[in-house]
C-alpha cells in the first residue's frame, strides 16, 4: 500500500519522535509513504479565520491523488474539517479561486487507523507482545472531531490498538478531555490545571503508560510533566507515548527508530518490565 504522508510542522521540532516512529512503523508494516510535495502548515488551532484555515488545508490536499495519512490529530482534524467544508459550493469556489491546483476531493487517514488495518493480534510481526501492560488510552479532542469517523463521546479505537498489541486498556475517565495545549503559551495557568487533572487521573487508574495521538497533548503531558509535578507537589512519573511508538515497541523496533530517547519521561523502565514479563521473569 502506498499513501501520501503529511508530516505537519511539529515533525520538524517538538514532535520529531512522532515523525520518526510513524515512518519506522509504516516501513515495518510494508506501508509505503510518499511525503506530500511542498506541504504547508494546516493552521493548527491558531488560525482565527475559518476560511483561511480551510484554504491552507486545501493547498495540502491538492498536492496528491492518493489518500493522505498523518499522525498528528490536529492536522487530521483540520484536513478532515476542510474536506467537509469544501463540499459546500460557495466555500469551494472561494478557495479554488486562490489555489494553483483546484481542489476536487481528498481522503484523509490517521496513522492509527492505517496501522490497525495492517495489523491484528495474531500477526507474527508482533514480536514483543505487551502482555499485562496497563495502558491509559488518551484521545484528547481532535482525533474524533469533527464527527463522522469515531464516536466523539466514547471512542474505542485506541483500546482496539492496545488490545491488538496484547496490552490492557484501562478504563480512563478523562480519555476525551482537553489537555489545554492550544492555550498553554497565552493562558498558562488554565492550561496547567487541565493537563494536571489528566495526569493525576491516569495515575489513579494505575497506568504504566499513557498512549495518545496529538503532539500538543504530548507537550502538555510529557514535556511539561516534570514542571507540573513540581508545581502541584505530586509525583506522576508516567511515560507518554505516541500510538506509533507503542506499536513500534510491540513490532520489536528499537529506541532509536522510535525516537524514544526524545521523550521527556523515559519509557525505558516500562520497556524493561515488558521484556521481563515476556521472558517470564515476573
Amino acid at each position: 500500500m502506498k499513501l501520501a504522508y503529511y508530516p505537519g510542522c511539529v515533525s520538524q521540532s517538538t514532535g520529531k519522535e512522532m515523525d520518526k516512529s510513524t515512518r519506522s512503523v509504516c516501513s515495518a508494516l510494508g506501508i509505503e509513504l510518499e511525503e506530500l510535495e511542498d506541504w504547508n502548515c494546516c493552521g493548527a488551532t491558531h488560525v482565527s479565520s475559518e476560511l483561511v484555515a480551510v484554504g491552507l488545508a486545501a493547498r495540502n490536499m491538492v498536492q496528491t491523488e492518493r489518500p493522505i495519512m498523518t499522525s498528528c490529530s490536529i492536522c487530521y482534524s483540520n484536513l478532515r474539517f476542510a474536506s467537509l467544508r469544501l463540499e459546500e459550493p460557495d466555500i469551494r469556489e472561494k478557495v479554488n479561486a486562490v489555489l494553483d491546483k483546484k481542489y476536487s476531493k481528498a481522503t484523509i487517514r490517521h496513522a492509527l487507523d492505517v496501522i490497525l488495518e495492517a495489523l491484528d493480534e495474531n500477526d507474527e510481526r508482533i514480536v514483543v507482545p505487551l502482555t499485562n501492560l496497563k495502558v491509559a488510552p488518551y484521545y484528547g479532542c481532535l482525533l474524533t472531531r469533527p464527527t463522522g469517523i469515531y464516536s466523539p463521546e466514547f471512542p474505542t479505537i485506541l483500546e482496539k490498538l492496545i488490545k491488538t498489541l496484547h496490552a490492557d486498556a484501562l478504563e480512563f475517565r478523562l480519555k476525551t478531555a482537553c489537555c489545554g495545549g492550544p492555550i498553554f503559551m497565552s493562558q498558562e495557568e488554565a492550561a496547567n490545571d487541565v493537563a494536571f487533572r489528566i495526569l493525576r487521573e491516569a495515575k489513579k487508574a494505575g497506568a504504566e503508560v499513557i498512549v495518545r495521538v496529538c503532539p500538543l497533548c504530548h507537550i502538555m503531558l510529557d514535556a511539561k510533566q516534570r514542571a507540573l509535578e513540581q508545581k502541584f507537589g505530586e509525583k506522576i512519573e508516567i511515560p507518554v507515548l505516541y500510538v506509533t511508538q507503542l506499536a513500534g515497541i510491540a513490532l520489536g523496533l528499537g529506541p532509536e527508530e522510535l525516537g524514544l530517547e526524545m521523550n521527556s519521561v523515559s519509557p525505558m523502565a516500562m520497556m524493561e518490565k515488558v521484556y521481563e514479563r515476556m521472558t517470564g521473569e515476573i
Partner: protein
Amino acid sequence: MTDEFRQKVLKLAGSEVQTCIQCGTCSASCPTASLMNPSIRKLIKLCLEGRKDEALNNDTLWLCTSCLLCTVRCPRSIRPKAVVSALKELAEQQGIRGGGPSYEQLFLEQIRDYGRIAELPLSGKFLLVFPQGIVQSMQMGLELAQRGKIGLEIVSIKGQDEVKRIIEELSK
C-alpha cells in the same frame, strides 16, 4: 450598527446561530468554562443581541482551546467554536486585545511569511509582546532543546506566494 455586527457574525459562523435556545450545553462541555466570563452561551447571546463591545472585549475568546466539544454536542447543530473564531477574527481586524498582537496573529504571520511553523522564532516573537510567559517558556525550551526537539530555523516553502495569497485573499 449593532445589526451590522450581528450579521457579520452570522455570515462567518453560520446563520443557524440564530436558532440558539440558550440551553448552555456548550458552556457545560467547555474545558475552560470555569475561567470564562462571559460563558460561551452568554457570548452567543451577546452576538445575537448585537452587543459588539462586550462580545469582542473579553478573555473568553482567548481561553477557547478549540476542542470542539461544544460543536459536537450542540442540540441545534450550531458551531459555537465557529462563533469564537468569527469573534477572534473581528477582534484581530480591529486590533482589540491588550498590549500587542495575539499569539494567533503571530502564528498566522509566520505561516504567511514561511508556509510552516517553527516554535523558537514564534515563541520569541510572542514573548516580546507577552513577557509574563518567559519563565514557562524558558523551562519548556530547555526541556525540548535537551531532547533535540526545537525547530531553530525556518525555511520558506516553494509555494510561499500561494500561501500568502490564500491568507490575504481569504481573510478579506
